[in-house]
């Protein structure tokens, strides 16, 4: 508002200048930090991300070679997680938008639970994975079928833990897209004699596929980078083979980076490997989030 600023006395204009400047500095600083981090990783690890690095097994106790098992393990993990988590999240979002009376106690408690779930520290999900999935569910399955493969950390229990952790992400994203479906469409469908379920299955869901997709992508982005929750639920620091069953342990990019940077016998030597691993992990989550943000902004414009 240039016409009002010019009427102010000089000290006030200086104050105003600083007020805007300080906010600008903060914004620039935050963006600068992000770019600086990214540039730092790119500079130090960019040349090490080669095809061999991506497709080879680590050698010589993780000090040489590639990250193939970690990359494959992470991919398997997030795929399994999506299979377990997205249907539950979608159904919850459908309940919240289509069935629930907005001020009923049940709808309110579901909402409160989702928000709480989003705020629970990820390490607590890790403990939950140990206590519930491994000890209780795995232990019960083993006791019932006489097997011995479920009562220990595995790909399955890690994926289940992450599915619980990413549930709020899916619910919020899908809910947003369901709300973006115009009310007219629902009413037209109901007026033509369709039942509520038919309306949801044939009208609402096809119109919010992008939202379900966004939710899944965001969840994958979050799950791929999450280490704390799976620390004791099945991740392993070294593996000669890829997991062949869901009850086996697996390698994970984030955990691989953690092990390389804090527990490797020669941290200095593996520094390029660490930067390259960081770059791959960051690239993966970055790509997921960017896709989700783009889809979402298109959705909002509609």
């Amino acid at each position, binding site marked *: 508002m240039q016409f009002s600023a010019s009427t102010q006395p000089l000290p006030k204009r200086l104050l105003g200048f600083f007020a805007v400047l300080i906010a600008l500095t903060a914004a620039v600083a935050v963006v600068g930090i992000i770019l600086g981090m990214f540039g730092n990783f790119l500079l130090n690890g960019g040349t090490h991300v080669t095809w061999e690095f991506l497709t080879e097994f680590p050698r010589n106790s993780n000090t040489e070679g590639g990250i193939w098992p970690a990359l494959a393990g992470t991919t398997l993990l997030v795929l399994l997680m999506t299979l377990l988590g997205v249907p539950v999240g979608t159904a919850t979002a459908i309940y919240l938008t289509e069935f629930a009376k907005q001020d009923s106690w049940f709808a309110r408690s579901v909402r409160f639970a989702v928000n709480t779930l989003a705020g629970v520290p*990820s390490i607590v999900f890790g403990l*939950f994975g140990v206590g519930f999935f491994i*000890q209780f569910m795995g232990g019960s399955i083993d006791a019932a079928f006489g097997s011995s493969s479920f009562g220990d950390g595995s790909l399955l229990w890690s994926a289940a833990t992450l599915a619980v952790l990413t549930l709020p992400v899916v619910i919020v994203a899908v809910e947003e897209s369901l709300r973006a479906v115009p009310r007219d469409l629902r009413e037209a469908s109901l007026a033509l004699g369709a039942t509520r379920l038919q309306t949801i299955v044939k009208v609402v869901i096809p119109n919010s596929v992008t939202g379900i997709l966004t939710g899944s992508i965001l969840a994958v982005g979050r799950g791929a980078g999450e280490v704390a929750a799976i620390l004791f639920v099945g991740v392993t620091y070294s593996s000669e083979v890829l997991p062949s069953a869901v009850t086996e342990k697996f390698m994970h990019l984030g955990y691989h980076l953690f092990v390389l940077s804090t527990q490797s016998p020669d941290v200095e030597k593996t520094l390029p490997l*660490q930067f390259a691993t960081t770059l791959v992990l960051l690239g993966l989550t970055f790509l997921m989030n960017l896709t989700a943000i783009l889809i979402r902004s298109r959705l909002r414009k509609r």
Partner: protein
Amino acid sequence: MNNPFRATRRNIGELIAEWSIRAIASVSILVIFLIFIFVFREASTLLTGSEEAPTEQTSTSSQETTATSTTQSEPDVYNPDAEEPEVYNPEAEAPASGEEGAPGEFIYIAANPAYPHIYNPSSGLIPPDIDATSSEEEVIAGDTLSFGENFLSSTWQPVGEVPKFGIVPLLIGTAKTTLIAILIGAPLGILAALFVAFFAKPWIREIVKPGIELLAGFPSVVIGFFCLVTVASWVQDVTGVPYRLNAIVGGIGLSLAVIPIVFSIAEDALSAVPKTLREASLALGSTEWQTAYRVMLPAAAPGVFAAVLLGIGRAFGETMIAIMATGNAPLSSFSPFEPARTVAATIGSEMGEVVWGSEHYGVLFLLGVLLFVFSFGLNAVTELYVKTRFIKRFQGK
């Protein structure tokens, strides 16, 4: 939706489908209960186990506690040469029992060629006045302390002849790093939100907002790695502190996780303030910045407050950044330039090597209960108090 024109044919299949959707929706509620029940259940093995221990020692316990209190009043007994490796390094004994390079063993404790300045107990860098509770008498007395006394003591030394689970240094470490993270992250996040909401041109907003949202997608292990390798060196170059990894480095790392949360919630709150307030303020002759700082920011205060609360929740619960960047030494020191160890980092670094079902295991789950209850409380406050106030203010309900 009591639509009188809706088809009245509601077959069994449809009813089942509806009710299964309802049932699935309750999974979120169920999970909250399950987390509480199962994390608490693992922790409760501790309570049943520890009840047996004190009863054996009831005859001596009163005698021993007086011994403890007298030694605590005499910090001069402390002998750095004799006691240091035992007291400062809870995991020093662990490598001997475990195989080499076992998961959960941290090389930073052993002499690490890459990071010679990382907190290292055998180098004797710690000034002797840091920990006043490490007299020899107390090491013996710790044997007969009841669980409650042990839990509230100021030594965290879970591996050793006499395991000690004093959470005081962990709480201090958590408070220290969280405070630093909030002091850095909250102003940056709120000011950046102000800029994006009121000062930025639309095209700048279109770039900055998703950019900061991308920071929220940075895996915490990546931020931790960045702090471990890069930020730690910067901080040491600038301040010249003796420990490469300390609470400041950890706090900076945590602030990187806090900023996007504070930013996006504060930005939402600022944008939710009715435009009429802004127009009225401008119409009265105030400038853009006066409107932003003196009208819009106070109007959005409950939402901004919620942003800071959720930022605190993120900071104290963050595990990987804390493990990698704080130095992980359980010291009862308030100095930001000394290493710290947070509650979450303790669970993360010790759970991997603990014997399932042991006392140590139970204590770690108890710490988990602590984290869960605290985050639950924080979230309940923001949900029930802050949001209702915000709605009341603008909808007049």
